């Protein structure tokens, strides 16, 4: 499937901003089943300086500064990405999570640092006693790694309620667990905290998901949103994705944009402003499939 993803963010400030600097993760990364055909990021007002490079986790990132006074900031990202379908995955196969050896390489082999770095808790996925308790029914001794992840995916979907007002960007997993509600970001964090409590390597994935309008209804412009889920590493399969918000294992309707330990590593737009006072932000996201069955009429 080929998608066109557009993400338009506009900030309106109450008073003049004299300087602003931003970190931007709005460009898709190439991945195993995913090819980036085109990407464009347009910013108004034109940044005084801007540098595009790869961040620590291998994601495309833009760092920029605007040193002219402004009251409004608009960022438009347009990307064309092709996502291939994956083969079937048997979550009940594979090594048990508590079997020694899968975490550390044999003495004569190099350690895969990309796997090792995702095994430890991060600030938002810290292990508290409650997290450990919640994880135990899923991380039963002898269970295969992917089965643990799938069990967590299902339990979080059942136990938690979607509520975009209960949490904010900085809510850690322990608080999500207490509130029993949150958004995709929170559910991903909780799953990661549970897995990493047992030193299972798991990473946070940000991206987009294809939404289908109700039958007979037209697709609403700008009504999509950015999404987040998690990915677990197993020695037999490598990285496998799980989406606890939708209780499924992503296929070609999830488009990954960035990987990190948690939200804070790859937030789509963050920035530091001088001035500006309060601000109002508008986000419009469109995920439009341009090939295949669901291609819209022009």
């Amino acid at each position, binding site marked *: 499937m080929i998608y066109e993803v557009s993400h338009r963010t506009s900030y309106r400030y109450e008073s003049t901003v004299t*300087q602003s600097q931003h970190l931007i993760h709005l460009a898709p990364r190439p991945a195993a089943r995913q090819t980036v055909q085109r990407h464009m990021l347009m910013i108004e007002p034109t940044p005084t*300086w801007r540098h595009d490079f790869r961040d620590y986790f291998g994601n495309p990132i833009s760092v920029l*500064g605007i*040193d002219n006074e402004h009251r409004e900031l608009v960022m438009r990202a347009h990307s064309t990405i092709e996502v291939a379908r994956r083969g079937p995955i048997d979550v009940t196969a594979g090594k048990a999570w508590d079997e020694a050896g899968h975490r550390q390489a044999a003495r004569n082999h190099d350690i895969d640092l990309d796997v090792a770095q995702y*095994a430890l808790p991060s600030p938002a996925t810290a292990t508290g*006693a409650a997290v450990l308790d919640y994880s135990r029914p899923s991380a039963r001794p002898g269970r295969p790694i992917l089965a643990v992840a799938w069990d967590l995916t299902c339990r979080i979907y059942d136990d938690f309620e979607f509520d975009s007002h209960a949490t904010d960007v900085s809510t850690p997993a322990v608080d999500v667990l207490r509130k029993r509600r949150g958004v995709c970001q929170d559910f991903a964090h909780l799953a990661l905290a549970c897995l990493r409590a047992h030193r299972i390597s798991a990473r946070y994935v940000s991206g987009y998901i294809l939404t289908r309008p109700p039958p007979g209804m037209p697709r609403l412009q700008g009504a999509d949103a950015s999404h987040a889920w998690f990915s677990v590493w197993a020695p037999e399969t490598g990285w496998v994705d799980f989406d606890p918000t939708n209780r499924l294992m992503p296929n070609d309707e999830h488009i990954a944009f960035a990987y990190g330990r948690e939200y804070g590593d790859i937030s789509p737009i963050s920035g*530091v402003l001088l001035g500006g006072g309060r601000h109002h932000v508008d986000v419009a996201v469109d995920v439009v499939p341009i090939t295949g069955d669901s291609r819209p009429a022009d």
Partner: protein
Amino acid sequence: MTVDAQTQERQLDLLEAYGPTGGTYDELVGPDRRPRPHWTTFLHGLRRLTSRDRLARASRLDRQVRETGLVHDVFADPETPQQQWRLNLMPLILSADEWSWLERAVGQRARLFNAILADIYGPQRLLRRGKIPPALVFGDGSYLRACQGIQPVQGHLQFYAADLARSADGNWRVIDNHAETPAGVGYAVANRVMHADVTDDLFSECRTRRISNHFSGLQAALAERAGRGDPTVALLTPGPAHGDYFSHAYLARYLDLALVEGGDLRVVGDEVFLKTLEGLKKIDLLVRCIEGRKADPLELDPSSFLGPSGLVHASRRSPGMMINAIGSAVIENRGLGAYLPSLCEELLGETLLLRDAPRWWLGDETARQHVEARLDEYVIRPASEGTGRPGQAVRGRVAGVLSGDERTQLISDLQRHGETLVAEQRAGFGTMPSLTSQGLQRKAFGLRLFAAASSDGFSVMPGGLAMGVDAETAVALSTSDGETHDVWVMATEPERPHASLWRPRVESALVQRSQRTLQSRVADNLFWLGRYLERADWTMRVIRSSLGRRLEYLESAPTRHAGDVCLEMLISKGAALSIPVGSRRVSGRSATLAGQLASERESTYSLINSFDGIYRVASLTRDRLSLETWRTLASFRVDETWRRRMAEASVSELQDEIEDKLSLVATFSGHLAENMTRNFGWFFLDMGRRLERAYNLCDVLQLLFHAGQSDDESNEHLNFILRLADSYITYRSRYRLQPMLPLVLDLLVMDETNPRSVAYQVAGLMRHLEALPQQTGSNALTRERRIVLALQTAIRLADVNELATVGPEKIRPALSLLLRQALKDLPDLSDAISRRYFRLVDDEPHRVVLRHEA
């Protein structure tokens, strides 16, 4: 008794209390209890002194510490007892041989850590091959992913410090490493300056090595690193609220670096700028004294604004600019020690000279199980801990003394995040002598040594910081008594002066007499220092003038005492306070009012508030003050006892105290006037003072003269104001007449040659404003110059006879109008100056984020 016998007796006294070593290594005496050879010259010198001399020197040292300001944290509550910084008269003496080994060993570690950092922030081969466990690095909050790939060609470390302890077998071992900041080197320098001053003769006799060569080498290295001879080097401090601020300010002064806070800096693209009165000025090198993880709200800890936004990116683009590189603290991880011997072989091809105290990193499964099984033998501590003030290391959890719950918690912590913990055995510390009133006493100590990169490798400062430790509980530099010692290194040969690359440039800079750039924040503080000094001076003059005339009024007081009126007005400023009615006896009432004005915290003009203000803002600008000025500063620190004493003081007590403090203000102002160059900083200090003085005088003139009075009253008021404004003598010598209002007004308001007059202050303000950078493109007058010009013109155009004329409503309309203008214009002027020079249009920075919603 012969001279020899006397000497013998003193020697006995000196070492009498110096008990047996008890199996530890002692610096002063060997196992035979005889002093080691490199101590003999010093002991000989010490024996020459009587015990009284020794104590006199010790108390001189105490005073130096107090006056240098080492005791207090600026913002600490004056009422709460603080840990005192103490400096003992006994130095720790190290022999030349021992030093040459330590120097090599500490230098080797610095090189090793540089190589490790280059790998961790580069290819990570050591991690991939398990030479360093990946989880040790990945689980350490000091490892900053945003800094991956930033590789300064000069190495990550410009500064490195090691905390050492001496084992019973005489070997040194490292108990902590410091790679984040210069780690309190400012304290070591301050200790040396104070200690060398008091032990002057002994210091030279012992042929102690000086530390100045080390620092001129460092300056040369900085100039080389910046690639130019006169680089702008700034030291970035978290600010006065930080426990180490003293060290930062002292180091900045010593090395002639600009002391800056995050808010003083601004990053534009690849470069870091300092906000100064003349606009943005580019910085060549930034010496970082803030924690790496708090250095940039954009890419690191989003809640910390200690560093300017964008700093990581600026150092990504110019890695050599940041000293030490951001993220360098990861090698402080205590778990790393066990891996260092093999890393040293691998990276340097050398045997590690100086080993770490035995420690087990609990991210290793085998080590964790071993430690859990023998928990009572260990102290459990965080593997990584921020760089704190020397002596403030966290003490750790001693499993043996924990309660049941605490023990359960500890075991759960080990299992849940062993990666962040280490287990240590209490291996004990060596001992050294400390001079007490009972002679020399043995005490456990730790030693911090400081290394800095120079053009030919690392140079280790020949000196250091020795401090008493709690041998029973400590496994790091933790101390409860805060006692420190200077460290003396014996020279083998006379020292050659260091050939500095820096000096010639300094000379050429002197010829230029270029104005050192002034940070907006510092200008702000100096302006307020001027205001508080003048305000304190004025308040005390009002009190003195009110009390001083009491005798003349004991007989008859037909009118309200001018002094009391002024006291009441000043007390009521800033708060609605009840003015005590007090005794009918005038003297009693004046004393009550004066006591209240001295001690009332609610009143803006009270002495205690002005002193607090002086102490606070002067402390904030310490790096701009001369050392003498800095010493006087400590006397402005008044406490609750002082406040209570003032509130209840008798007239004569008040008078004595006021005279003392008036001369203190005069001394302090004198030091400022003598020692500050007449640059922008001075302009702001002086403007603050002039503005305050003009305002206060106008305020009292308005109070006393806006209404017409009886002759008696008028006479009394005129005498009072002449004394208050220190112009009595001038008036008498000029007029030889009884005070008359028009003449007094001429002298106090209009006369631009009288340093106490309003016109004189306004003219001074005008001069300074004209000399300051204007920051506007056009030729139009700035707002602040408009205000001053209007006020100056109004004063010049006024007619003294008209000012003195009483109108039909029993008031003096012209005088009142003029003074009202001044009382409105002067505060407006203060605001206008703040707006233009201090804020530079910046608000507080804040963050915006966008979340993953669906």
